[in-house]
């Protein structure tokens, strides 16, 4: 087999996996704290893609052209605004349901996802939108005909996903906020009794999760260059799958799950059949969960009597 093709396919899988992982982190954070599948997460990602294009055009019209400045400003504002989205959605659609059945917020989230999609469709139109190419350049290894390549923006995605995961893991494990999060996760009532403002902690987690979606949204939009109001759906399901594969609730798990899923899809579609790549990905998920019912890195559920 051609070593360059194999290398390129591995790299394709890694990049796709990093994207999945980056979005899966948001899923897993929210799940970790209130045990709820936030189906609107994919649509937050979609919103951030639109924000990227809007912010870029605003920043360019202000005459700012220095690449790092543009990138940082876009990232900052996109993350701040989607963070607000996350906060507001939690406040409006999920908080009133706290304390009812576990499935109620799930349905509310599905409704919210519809709302976000059609809100964007109505305000921005159903057409495809795009962003100009911001980061050019490509790293090639090999000769003229045969090479393995990765573009700079793809490198940025891989790095950002690992940094994002590491930073959040640090926050959860080492900081006071993280301790409060874990306390809230284990026993919300007890945490509240001990003086933790659990509502605020949950809101904070939604804000962080949503801004992670924005981080992914900005970088991925710059990578593919185009988006529409429907992109959140497919990638949302994939990222959720990645989060479960890695063990939902675990941050390194989300990253690992993303990369495993991305690699599986990439290699299968590259060497076997692209038609059945999703069948293979979901089949792999089933297989992993049959043998490890709590995912790759998830803690096994303790069955209490």
């Amino acid at each position, binding site marked *: 087999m051609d070593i360059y093709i194999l290398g390129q396919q591995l790299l394709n899988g890694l990049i796709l996996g990093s994207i999945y992982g980056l979005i899966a982190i948001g899923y897993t954070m929210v799940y970790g704290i209130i045990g709820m599948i936030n189906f609107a997460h994919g649509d937050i990602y979609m919103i951030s893609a639109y924000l990227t294009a809007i912010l870029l*055009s605003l920043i360019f019209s202000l005459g700012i052209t220095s690449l790092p400045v543009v990138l940082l400003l876009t990232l900052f504002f996109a993350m701040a*605004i989607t963070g607000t989205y996350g906060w507001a959605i939690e406040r409006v659609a999920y908080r009133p349901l706290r304390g009812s059945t576990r499935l109620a917020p799930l349905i509310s989230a599905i409704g919210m996802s519809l709302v976000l999609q*059609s809100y964007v469709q109505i305000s921005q139109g159903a057409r495809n939108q795009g962003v100009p190419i911001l980061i050019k350049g490509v790293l090639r290894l090999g000769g003229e005909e045969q090479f393995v390549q990765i573009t700079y923006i793809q490198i940025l995605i891989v790095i950002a996903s690992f940094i994002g995961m590491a930073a959040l893991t640090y926050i959860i494990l080492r900081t006071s906020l993280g301790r409060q999060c874990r306390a809230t996760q284990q026993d919300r009532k007890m945490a509240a009794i001990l003086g933790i403002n659990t509502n605020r902690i949950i809101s904070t987690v939604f804000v962080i999760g949503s801004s992670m979606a924005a981080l992914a949204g900005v970088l991925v939009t710059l990578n593919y260059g185009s988006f529409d109001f429907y992109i959140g759906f497919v990638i949302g399901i994939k990222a959720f799958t990645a989060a479960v594969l890695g063990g939902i609730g675990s941050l390194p798990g989300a990253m690992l799950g993303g990369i495993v899923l991305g690699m599986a899809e990439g290699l299968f579609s590259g060497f076997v059949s692209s038609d*059945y790549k999703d*069948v293979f990905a979901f089949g792999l998920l089933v297989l992993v969960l049959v043998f490890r019912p709590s995912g790759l890195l998830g803690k096994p559920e303790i069955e209490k009597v």
Partner: protein
Amino acid sequence: MPIQQKTSLRKALLDGFWSGILALIIFGPISGLVLKGYEVQNELMRPLLIALSVAVGRFLISYLIQTTKGRYYLGKLVGKRDAGVTVASLTKSKYQHLLIPVLVLAGLSVPLLLGKYWLTVVILALIYVLLGLGLNIVVGLAGMLDLGYVAFYAVGAYTLAMGAQYFELGFWTMLPVAAIGAAMFGAMLGFPVLRMHGDYLAIVTLGFGEIIRLVLNNMLEITGGPNGASAPSPTLFGLEFTRRAKQGGIPFHEYFDIAYSPSYKYIFIYLILFVVVCLMILFVTRLKQMPMGRAWEALREDEIACRSLGINHVTVKLSAFMMGAMVGGIAGVFFATYQGFINPSSFTFFESALILAIVVLGGLGSTVGVIVAALVLTILPEALRDFAEYRVLLFGIAMVLMMVWKPRGLIRIKRKAYELGEPTA
């Protein structure tokens, strides 16, 4: 709580102000700056208006909640948070025994009252009632979150279409075949997932649902792939309800020598479907009181306790999966025959989510609730058609609001009451 609380206008104003600012941040960029190529077009009036209405709304709520009357009305809107189990009262109300015959008669007379369009909407609603009843067994009674229920629906629908295409079998033969086929399928899918709990189960079933759809889509030679397959209409002892006979029978209107109307087919489907739904309601209600149904509910409440009391959790879970799948398969057959054509795009994850929404909104385990929720969630999008592109937006908002209004579903489930010493019904 102080009896007389001073109403603070200042607080309400501040609340309103901050909500307006937040709304501006949220709605500003997306609805205010419309992308045109790589440029944006200024539409900032829109978010300003939205933000203003949010601010005013928040101010009013904030102000009203400080007054006793306001609290009372708002409390009514938000819904109660009471948890726990309620038990039905033993004494039946006077009109109880009249209720069911009246409802059945009303149901049978629906085709006389409605035009063809609304009749088809009601047929679709009844199909969703069936789906809701089926998923209710798995999610509501047995407590297993199934996000891929659409798989069984697809199996039922494709069984009818494939049976007609390859074996020239009609609706009546395929109905039981599809039911059994889907149940077998349920057992097959159920087996590997028995060890899983909660959301891991959910994602695996979601995966199965997607796999089924993708396989149906990819097997072009057998299923027709994205081009779909046609499904036969039901016949009445060989009489067909189409304008011209397609399955080698005689058209209904020619046999009775009456004018043709496209509604006949739908009236006929509606009547069969109505009978099937009634039977299914009866079946599910009886099932709930049988040992099997009680085992499901017990397992939902506490699996470990059940196993220690000697309940075989494998058979109990599998039976729930199979029963649910069977009902889904039957619904699939009706869907295919109603539509006359199926392709994989009818069986997406969104469909599973919609059925789940019916079950949760109905109140997890409540049969009446499922029926009401299915009617609401299928008729609502059709009723909203006059709002054109705002339809989906309003539907989504309605879904969120209904959940916030009734977090435990439209109908709270009630345990049946029993009296000691008397023979129970």
